[in-house]
Structures are given as C-alpha cells and as structure tokens.
C-alpha cells in the first residue's frame, strides 16, 4: 500500500517536471532558430559600397572572368611581380651565349608540385610555344593574371571554395568591392605547399 502511494506521488511529481523539460527544450530550439532567422531573413542584399571609409586598393588588379555569388570581383594581378616578364624577350630565335646559360635556364626553379617522383614539368602549365602565356590541358591560352583558370583544372575544389570565399582571402577590406588574392600570391606555383617553419611567437599558459 505504502509503495503504491509513493508511486502515485512519484507520477504526480514527474508529470509537471516533464512538461517543464519539454517547454524548456522548445524554448531553446525557438531561440536558436530565431538567431539564424535574423541572419537569413534580411531583406535585400547589403550595399557594400555604403561603407564610406573604404579606400580603393592600391595594388594592380584585374576583373575575374568568373562570377562570385552572382556578382563580379577583382583579383590581384600577377604579371608585374614576375621578375623577367615578358618571357618572349628571351624566348626568341636569337642565339644565347653559353656562359649565360646558368642564368637563363631557370636553374633556380625547383619543382615540388605533383606526386613525389612524378613532379609536373614546365610545359604542363607553361605554353610550349608562346611563353608569355600558360596553357591548360585543353590547349587554351591562359594569361598569367588569370592563373586561377589553370590551377582550377586540377584543384577544382579549391577553386570552387576560392570563388565563394572559403579559400584564400580578401585584400584589406571586408566591405567595398571584392578584391581577393590570386593563387600565386600565396602559393609558389613551382612548390605550392607552405614550408614548415617555426611559429611567429609562442603562448604562455593562461592564469
């Protein structure tokens, strides 16, 4: 008899508790969706040009030939940073002195791109005839400023992320017209993986 009464009391106590638990859970879910909703239910796109203090970037840029979330954007130009561009100023039919061979054969370029032991060769990316350009596997001429078109044929996932903004980064401003770093701004195309090195600083334990 005693246990029966206890069970009854137990049930009586559990019922409001359960109600409370479900109510709380419902509340938590509601508040979470509310935050995401405020983000997603924004009427119309944000005018990035409305931020007055944004200055145009001083670096040379080119308009990317592919769209970004429906709009256009710019990328850092590359050609002005290539030391001996234009390549065709040397790659001509004229003769070269043997003693200048060391300098002119790009002996400083070490290729560490592609599978180990089966690295890429020069003309896998460079145009075999017209040295002022790159060439992709379909035989299209690609400008050095638009090297993302070439890199993207193998690294298509990275390119997709780069177009969207999950790979690479913007220059200086989150607002204003979108300007991003080019593939070769960060990666050395001949050896694209970042080298191992010591970190810039260290941390002391908190407290």
């Amino acid at each position: 008899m005693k246990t029966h009464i206890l069970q009854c009391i137990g049930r009586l106590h559990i019922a409001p508790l359960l109600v409370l638990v479900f109510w709380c859970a419902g509340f938590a879910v509601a508040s979470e969706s509310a935050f995401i909703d405020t983000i997603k239910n924004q009427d119309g796109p944000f005018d990035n040009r409305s931020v007055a203090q944004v200055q145009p970037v001083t670096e040379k840029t080119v308009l990317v030939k592919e769209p970004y979330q429906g709009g256009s954007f710019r990328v850092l130009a590359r050609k002005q940073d290539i030391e001996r561009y234009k390549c065709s100023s040397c790659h001509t039919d004229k003769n070269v002195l043997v003693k200048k061979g060391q300098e002119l054969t790009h002996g400083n370029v070490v290729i560490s791109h592609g599978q180990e032991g089966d690295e890429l060769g020069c003309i896998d990316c460079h145009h075999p005839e017209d040295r002022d350009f790159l060439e992709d596997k379909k035989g299209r001429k690609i400008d050095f400023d638009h090297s993302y078109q070439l890199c993207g044929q193998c690294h298509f996932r990275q390119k997709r992320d780069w177009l969207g903004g999950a790979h690479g980064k913007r220059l200086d401003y989150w607002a204003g017209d979108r300007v991003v770093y080019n593939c070769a701004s960060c990666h050395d195309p001949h050896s694209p993986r970042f080298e191992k090195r010591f970190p810039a600083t260290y941390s002391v334990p908190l407290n």
Partner: protein
Amino acid sequence: MSSEQKDTVTTISEDVMEKSSSRRSFIKGLSLAAAAGSAALATGCIPTANAASSEEMKLRWQEFFKKNYRLMNQKEKEDTVTRLERLAKIQDDMYVQVGHEAPIEKVLYGYAFNITRCEGFMECVTACVKENNLDRKTNTQYIRIFEMEPGKLDPSTGNGAYFHKVPVDDKFYMGTQCFHCENAPCTKACPTKATWKEPDGIVVVDYDWCIGCRYCQAACPYYGRRFNWGQAEVPKEEITTKQHYLGNRKRPKGKMEKCTFCIQRTRKGRLPACVEACPTGSRVFGNLLDPDSEIRYVLKHKKVFRMKDELGTEPKFWYFID
C-alpha cells in the same frame, strides 16, 4: 600634504575634540576640515606626479567624472576622445587618433575559422598583439592557437604552448578568441554594465567603467577575456595610433580587455588584423546580414560547427572544414 596643511587639520580636530563645542563651532570646524581635505585631494590624491600640469589635472578630473559610453551623447563622445588624445600627448608625448565610430547599419559581424587550413604559424597572434597594443611584459594575447590530436575538437585537449616547426604531420590547429556571442553570458555577469553587445554584434568593454572584478571572465565559457594586472608596456614606436574608444586605446591598470574584432578597423570596413595577417587564409570575416558575403558562403556550403554550441550562447564564430 604639506606640514602647514597638517597643522591646520590637527588644530581643527583638537578644537572639535577638546573644546566644549557649540553647534556653530562644530560646523565651522567641519567645513574647514572639508576644505583642507579637498585641497589635499586636488594636490595629492588624483594626479600622482607632482609635476602634473594644470591642464592634465583638469583633463583627468573631467575623465574621472564622465559617463558610461552608452549614456553619452555625440558631443560627450567627441569631448572624451579629444581629452584622451590630448592626454596621450601630455603624458606619453604621442599623437594618437581615438575614434568613436558608431556601428554600421545592417551589419552583424561573423567569423569563420578553417581548421583544415590553419598550420599554426601564429602570425595572427603577433598581428593582434601589435594592433591592439597588448602588454609585451606579460605576453598578453587575445588569440590562442592549439595543436590538436586528430579526431579531437575540444581545444582544452590540445597543446596551447607548442614551439617547434609547424605544421606537424597528423596534427591540426585550432584558434580561439572572443567569440562575440549573441547571447553573451559575460555581459550578464557585469555588475557595473561596463560590458555589452553592440548593435553590430561586437562585445565591448568600457574600460573606464570596468571595476576589474573579473566576474565576466568567470562567466565566459570560452576563456575569451583577459585581465590586465598593470598598465600595458608597449615600445613607443610599436604603438598603433589609430585607436577606438572601445578598442585598442590605452587601457587603465586593472581592467578587463578582450578581442573586439579590431573594432577600430572593422567599423571602417577593414579586416581585423588577424585575418589580414593569416598566411594560409584560414580566417574568414564578414557581414552575416549580407547574403553575398564570404562568411555566408561558408555557412551555406561548408561543414561548420561552433564550440560548446549546446550552451546556447550563440557564438558568432564558426569552425569549418574543407
């Protein structure tokens, strides 16, 4: 206090204590003592240096009695930043620009961190220290980078004190800082309302209203806040002179400070210093209310998670993997 003033105070107190005092003489004595006391306050208590100029004293007096930043009107904000700029010139011989830029409308800042890409170079940390004029003596840092074992997603299991060549094979790196929660527990803990969430989502501290009780530090589940035990020591030539009232300006001793998403930069459309410095592009920053922004792309197309999501603090800082 000079000996003359001391004598006055003693004689007054003797008068009050020993002579049979009428109400009139008591009040007379009291007012004299008060006058002597306020003279002591004016000369000795507030300015520490004897050589403090009268202009500095005046400015410090006005600074001492200013309002909480949220109660100030535009004029009062302008006045206080002018005073702070002038004080920086008088005290440290520095020309600084203290701003009080208001939040930009229709902007809510969000941050994403790519744990696949980060290689632990910690250049974000040095950039942050430099930008925010953090104390070099105690090596204060707002950002922590943890070297993590594969499969673990809780930074408390990682190594935050590594110093060797990075990246190490089979490890990944995870950064933490203030997550600028939408439902920030730290702001609720503050007894003086010295910390709050701005309309653009940045959680800020009014350094002059912070009493240094560190309740907010205890309330933060992410170890996002830092307490300064002393005036920050920064080499003069390394001080970032473009400052914000709620950001990287000179903080008094014994205050709470934290990442502000570089409020002095972001409110002018610039990227935070950590994002700008990251050599691997692991850090994505942008406007959550702009459907075309990079941060929205990451949230839409990537596998994202937040730290301690179950607490309901709604951090505006997502981790993602490629």
